């Protein structure tokens, strides 16, 4: 993984010093809350329902054992013993005191971590495929480019006061595991006809109250022009994105209101000007990329050819282990290794939460069995990217002992959920308790397996941090006449066939929503062709009508509203 060079270290240290000064000025009353707000946001500090919340970046989702231990330490010493991993490869601490935050940031800097630009109207943490560098279907590892974008966008003088937040995601594989089409800019590495590397640029994706799937802006931008093109897009957005209404300020609205063709032309004009400018040379040279590559130490994997046989016999002996391997273990590009996903979705637990003790255990596992490396996934789980097949059983047994062995990746209880009304000042409804009830409801042995692959997402309000629009089943907390209601959407998807879910009809009360989900599941089970047809495929084949009929007793949309 990437190690800081001297410059990176000095840069982060200077930012910590700068923010410590700003906190001091705030506590001394020299800055008003209004003036302090954009400064604290730039450093990942939110003011929430009960306390300040600190969001720490895990750039492109990669972290070391040492970094994970530091997160555990922070959870233990400055918070209430746990942290929450988010869909954007960040970790949130919900209870730090403002006076402690400079100290926390300085502890983070010791392990090459920071909270810079994890909030505010700037370019946010660059996210990536959590299987980057190890996936069997990869064209090339996207993380060096993610790191280049991270550096390029850090405290960018021109792009620090954008109309609204701006999110990049980048992948280098066939399968989109990072939801690139739900980002302001989604990048996919690919090769052109003569084998050169370049990027497909998608633009204007996003969720919130106007969910949109990003459109393909350019099929192939050569690697050397990555920063030219990214600068052109963000500059056009900075100049013309709306600033009069925060709900219309994302680039997706600019795309929509300007028209896709016109906006593309504007971007191309800026792109051409940037390529011409000798005063502002952004050409990405091979030497630059290699300089970054040199700071990524990719482990040299030893061969362990006997691991496969050991694994086969252990799976035959231990049924629970067999099931866990089936759900939580993914093929590695090295035949003697596997990628292990550690579920943070214990039945009845809080999706994405990990205790300090669990973080330490996972850090130990990574140190012992995964070349010191860990990943955080879009689905709010953790990943051990380099586990030899022969070590899988040992890893599994440690996870069992630490209540981290839920064999539910890709199942209905692998829920993406935002913190909701339990923590968030913007929430309309609780999301955690609904997630807990759903995972409990479907936890009966064999039930989840019968349902098969499905993605269920929950957001506590229309800001959609729980990505409900992109859930095969989405649940959105709304408030109607003072009561919490839950709206259902079906057919959303975040992957290669990205789509936004459709609303079923009127919402359900807190004590009805889990039954409604079960009604949907029963309908699916009765209508699917066979066990091999996942929920989303069945939905795409049969559409909304049978589900609406089952939920409301009518297939008519207006009647169901």
């Amino acid at each position: 993984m990437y190690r800081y060079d001297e410059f990176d270290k000095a840069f982060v240290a200077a930012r910590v010093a700068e923010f410590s000064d700003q906190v001091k000025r705030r506590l001394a009353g020299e800055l008003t809350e209004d003036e302090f707000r954009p400064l604290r946001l730039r450093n990942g500090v939110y003011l929430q329902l009960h306390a300040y919340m600190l969001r720490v970046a895990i750039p492109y989702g990669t972290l070391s054992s040492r970094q994970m231990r530091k997160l555990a330490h922070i959870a233990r010493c400055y918070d209430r013993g746990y942290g929450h991993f988010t869909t954007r490869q960040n970790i949130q601490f919900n209870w730090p005191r403002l006076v402690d935050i400079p100290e926390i940031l300085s502890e983070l800097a010791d392990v090459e971590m920071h909270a810079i630009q994890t909030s505010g109207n700037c370019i946010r943490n660059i996210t990536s495929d959590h299987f980057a560098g190890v996936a069997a279907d990869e064209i090339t590892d996207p993380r060096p480019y993610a790191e280049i974008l991270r550096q390029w966008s850090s405290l960018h003088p021109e792009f620090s006061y954008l109309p609204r937040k701006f999110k990049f995601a980048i992948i280098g594989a066939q399968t989109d595991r990072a939801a690139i089409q739900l980002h302001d800019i989604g990048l996919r590495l690919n090769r052109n006809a003569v084998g050169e590397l370049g990027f497909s640029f998608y633009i204007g994706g996003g969720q919130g109250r106007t969910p949109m799937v990003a459109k393909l802006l350019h099929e192939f931008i050569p690697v050397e022009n990555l920063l030219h093109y990214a600068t052109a897009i963000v500059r056009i957005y900075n100049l013309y994105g709306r600033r009069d209404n925060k709900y219309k300020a994302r680039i997706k609205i600019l795309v929509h209101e300007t028209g896709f063709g016109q906006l593309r032309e504007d971007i191309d004009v800026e792109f051409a000007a940037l390529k011409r400018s000798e005063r502002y040379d952004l050409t990405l040279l091979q030497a630059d990329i290699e300089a970054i590559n040199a700071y990524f130490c990719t482990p040299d994997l030893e061969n362990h050819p006997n691991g496969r046989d050991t694994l086969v016999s252990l799976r035959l002996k231990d049924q629970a282990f067999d099931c866990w391997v089936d759900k939580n273990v993914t093929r590695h590009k090295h035949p003697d290794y596997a990628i292990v996903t550690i579920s943070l979705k214990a039945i009845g637990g809080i999706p994405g939460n990990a205790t300090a003790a669990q973080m330490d255990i996972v850090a130990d596992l990574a140190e012992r069995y995964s070349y010191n490396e860990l990943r955080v996934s879009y689905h709010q789980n953790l990943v051990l990217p380099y586990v030899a097949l022969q070590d899988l059983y040992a890893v599994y047994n440690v996870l069992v002992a630490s209540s981290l062995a839920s064999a539910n990746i890709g199942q209905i209880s692998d829920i993406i959920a935002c913190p909701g009304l339990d923590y968030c000042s913007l929430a309309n409804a609780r999301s955690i308790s609904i997630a807990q009830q759903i995972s409990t409801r479907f936890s009966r042995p064999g039930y989840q397996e019968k349902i098969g692959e499905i993605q269920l997402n929950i957001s506590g309000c229309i800001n959609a941090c729980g990505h409900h629009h992109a859930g095969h089943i989405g649940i959105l907390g709304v408030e109607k006449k003072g009561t919490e209601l839950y709206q259902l959407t079906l057919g959303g998807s975040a992957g290669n066939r990205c789509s936004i879910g459709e609303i079923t009809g009127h919402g359900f009360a807190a004590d009805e929503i889990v039954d409604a989900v079960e009604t949907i599941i029963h309908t699916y089970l009765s209508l699917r062709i066979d066990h091999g047809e996942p929920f989303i495929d069945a939905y795409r084949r049969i559409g909304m009508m049978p589900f609406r009929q089952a939920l409301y007793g009518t297939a008519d949309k207006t009647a169901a509203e």
Partner: protein
Amino acid sequence: MALLTRQLLNRGRCPIPNDNKKIWGIGGFRENLYINVERREKEDHRKLILPLTQWKQQVMQTCSATCENDQIGIFVAAGDDIEPLLPFLSVIPLLALDFPVFDDGRSYSKAVQLRTCHFYLGELRAVGDILIDQVSNMIRCGFDTLEVTHSLTQVRLAAHSGEFFTGFYQSGAKLVRSGQRRVWYTFG
């Protein structure tokens, strides 16, 4: 300016009297050689700053921007397009780009465009709601001077060592890339 005051009030901050403006650039505070058109009185011989719209009318009327115009700077509001200025950049001595509120970032992009794509060599001045925390970004985007009204910012700038460049990942508008460094790197 009434608008600015209103915006400041809306943000719960005491409006700072506007006559307390000071012009600052790397090296310290300096004399303001310009006066806004609406504030100029008969005797005043300082150079003028005209709003872009008014300047455009004048150019249309005289069909020229050359004659006395090297005495006239232009105020460019955050929402103004710089397009009409482009043919005249070589004779415009000063462009005052507006920051109506500190988190309106449009004028940063305009400054960079003016410096790096249109090779503007005159004075670029940031005006409006300027706080200490924006100063480094402004300088890095190519501004020469800042018109500062916020009194605490004035105090901080007066006490400032001038050390704004502790190192950034991007080359600034006026800084040229140096040989072996990564393209997005610049040390100050």
